[in-house]
């Protein structure tokens, strides 16, 4: 089949969503299909611009290009998943979150814009109307499926996919650090971890791996750590090579991943692939689909005290940490997450 994958892009930015689309493209090609990515730019401010981008996506027609028929479209991200096609299957990474769970949330800002309420209504209306056009709707995770149901009344099937280079993760002898791999930003809550470190009874050490969304924010966090007297207990590694990332996972004692309502979260899966326990929070979204409290990691209250207690527990019993990590790896293996399964599901939906 000739298949187009439609997704949104933020020009000059490359991240997990790009890897996701490329992974799907490669998996479709591996199954003998012709597949290509269509990445439509998306700019979400001022709020009215969202409507213009939605309209642009509705105006595109991908059923035939030149004299070539396109057999299927797989839509991934808002608003690119609104593109019409007679044989469309959606695999929704996330909706426009500011119109839903981040409405009137400290991390959102659509509600602060003059026409925010109006735009939010238009987004919800478009989602309810046009998502329904699809032959089948899959979601990136149970978390995303749950939101679709809660806010739009739409049913969808959660469909997991493996992280990029899943086979490269390995486990080695644990050293004295917990790893927090994520871009540095408010949604990932490095700040909460720094606050928790000031409260731990154990000498817990954390290595923060990842580039900052905004340099000022990273500097603020570093200053905060210094002020709290955490020198020697925190390391800011920035962005590192892939090889180095695998090594850092492999030698960690465990992984910290406490984001705010994450859609899916590769970090959890990467930790499990590296046989490492994961500490997450009760409001972290996607990670909660994988982390089992006391079995493959710990689930803490999203407070400095709550998180500090979980970090202490992990730090003080290294043998336990090791066995939690091994259980995480077993759980991953039992879930049957593979690109072949993804392709089979998406194509059976069309």
């Amino acid at each position, binding site marked *: 089949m*000739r298949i*187009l994958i439609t997704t949104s*892009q*933020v*020009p*000059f*930015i490359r*991240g997990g*969503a790009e890897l996701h689309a490329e992974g799907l493209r490669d998996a479709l090609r591996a199954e003998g299909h*012709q597949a*290509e990515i*269509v*990445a*439509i*730019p998306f*700019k*979400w*401010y*001022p709020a009215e*611009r969202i409507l*213009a*981008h939605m*309209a*642009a*996506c509705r*105006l*595109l*027609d*991908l*059923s*035939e*290009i*030149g*004299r*070539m028929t*396109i057999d299927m479209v797989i839509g991934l991200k808002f608003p690119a998943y609104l593109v019409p096609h007679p044989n469309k299957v959606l695999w929704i990474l996330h909706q*426009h*979150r*500011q119109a839903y769970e*981040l409405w009137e949330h400290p*991390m*959102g*800002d659509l509600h602060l814009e003059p026409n925010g309420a109006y735009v939010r209504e238009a987004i919800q209306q478009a989602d309810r109307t046009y998502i329904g056009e699809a032959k089948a709707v899959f979601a990136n995770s149970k978390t995303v499926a749950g939101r679709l149901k809660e806010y739009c009344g739409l049913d969808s099937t959660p469909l997991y996919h493996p992280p990029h280079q899943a086979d490269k993760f390995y486990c080695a002898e644990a050293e004295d650090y917990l790893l927090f791999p994520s871009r540095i*930003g*408010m*949604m990932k809550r490095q700040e909460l971890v720094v606050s928790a470190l000031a409260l731990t009874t154990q000498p817990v050490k954390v290595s923060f791996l990842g580039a900052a*969304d*905004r340099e000022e924010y990273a500097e603020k966090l570093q200053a905060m750590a210094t002020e709290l007297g955490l020198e020697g207990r925190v390391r800011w590694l920035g962005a590192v090579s892939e090889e180095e990332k695998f090594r850092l996972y492999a030698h960690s004692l465990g992984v910290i991943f406490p984001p705010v309502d994450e859609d899916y979260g590769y970090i959890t899966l990467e930790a499990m692939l590296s046989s490492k326990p994961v500490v997450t929070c009760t409001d972290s979204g996607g990670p909660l689909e994988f982390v089992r409290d006391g079995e493959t990691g710990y689930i803490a209250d999203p407070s400095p005290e709550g998180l500090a207690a979980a970090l202490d527990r992990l730090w003080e019993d290294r043998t336990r940490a090791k066995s939690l990590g091994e259980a995480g790896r077993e759980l991953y293996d039992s879930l049957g997450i593979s690109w072949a399964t993804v392709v089979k599901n998406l194509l059976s939906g069309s």
Partner: protein
Amino acid sequence: MDPAPHPGLSPAEATTGQVPASTAQESLRIAICTTQVPFVYGGNEVLVEGLRDALQERGHRVSIISIPYRWHPRTHIVTGALAWRLIDITESNGEPVDLAICTKWPSYVVKHPRKVVWLVHQFRQAYDWFGTPLSDFTSMAEDRRVRRLILKMDHKALSESRKVFTISRNVANRLHRFNGLEGTPLYPPLRSGLALEPGPYGDYILSLNRLDAAKRIGLLLEALGQAPELKAVIAGTGPEADNLKRQASRLGIAGRVEFAGFVSDEEASRLYRSARAVYYAPVDEDYGYGTIEAFQAARPVITTDDAGGVLEFVEDGVTGLVTTPEPAAIARSLQRLLANSDEAERMGRAGQEKIRDITWDRVADALLQATG
């Protein structure tokens, strides 16, 4: 992507942000806008990727924005262009996009305060193809309306551009004739995979083209039928492949014509490096990479007086031979260069000299200087 990476940013503030001038030292964020043709890798993709590499080499950040375009049936012609108008690429994630370089219709319909168009071609069915079998536009009211809209959009979108470059004088001439707008020819260099250092002048004529009717390979076969001493290598694939092979058998020249099919860059380079001359006579080509490839390898080009962009480089008797598109005339050109390898070399070298200035450095300079 976080939904609100820059909660504190006022959009108005960001739009009026200072845009740096394009001096060589500053790193700009440059969007290259183009039309995506899924599952096809051709001249436009070569151009876009070459431009991206050249700009990145100068330390700029480049993002390619590529959107498919449906033009059939008629109603999509306008809506597909309108989609480009609605997409906002003036900023990305709170930071200004300093420059937009747009190539094919309808990508240049996009709005940007610093837009430069490097026009690959317009929607030819509404222009130079109109009234020919290549266009399915008729004189019916609806068709006339759509044509008028295309002209209007072209005029508006291209007038907004800081400057309009075209990939050839041929494309600039059409722009002037149909839209009354000026375009400056800026010739695109070749893809980097070719290695065309000139070798000996062998005994075969090379044609390396997509095998479709517009490239007129049939005319070459007819000419070979009239020149019994000539050999040719015809490389490339396309819809006419079977017809051409049948034609060669019918003309009784199958033994002198080798159909090489798809060739890699390496094989293509080898074929160019030791050909006697290159046959390249497409119908009103926009630009014609074939000429540039031949000249880079210092091969003379045999072409016709209706070949469009090819004629911007091939001068009769100087860098190749130009005749009417008739088998007998082509046969005479072929025979002349086969008889005299010194002349082939002299013309080939003159061609090589002629394209010396077609470099990515020059392209990047021109596009960046246009925005001041």
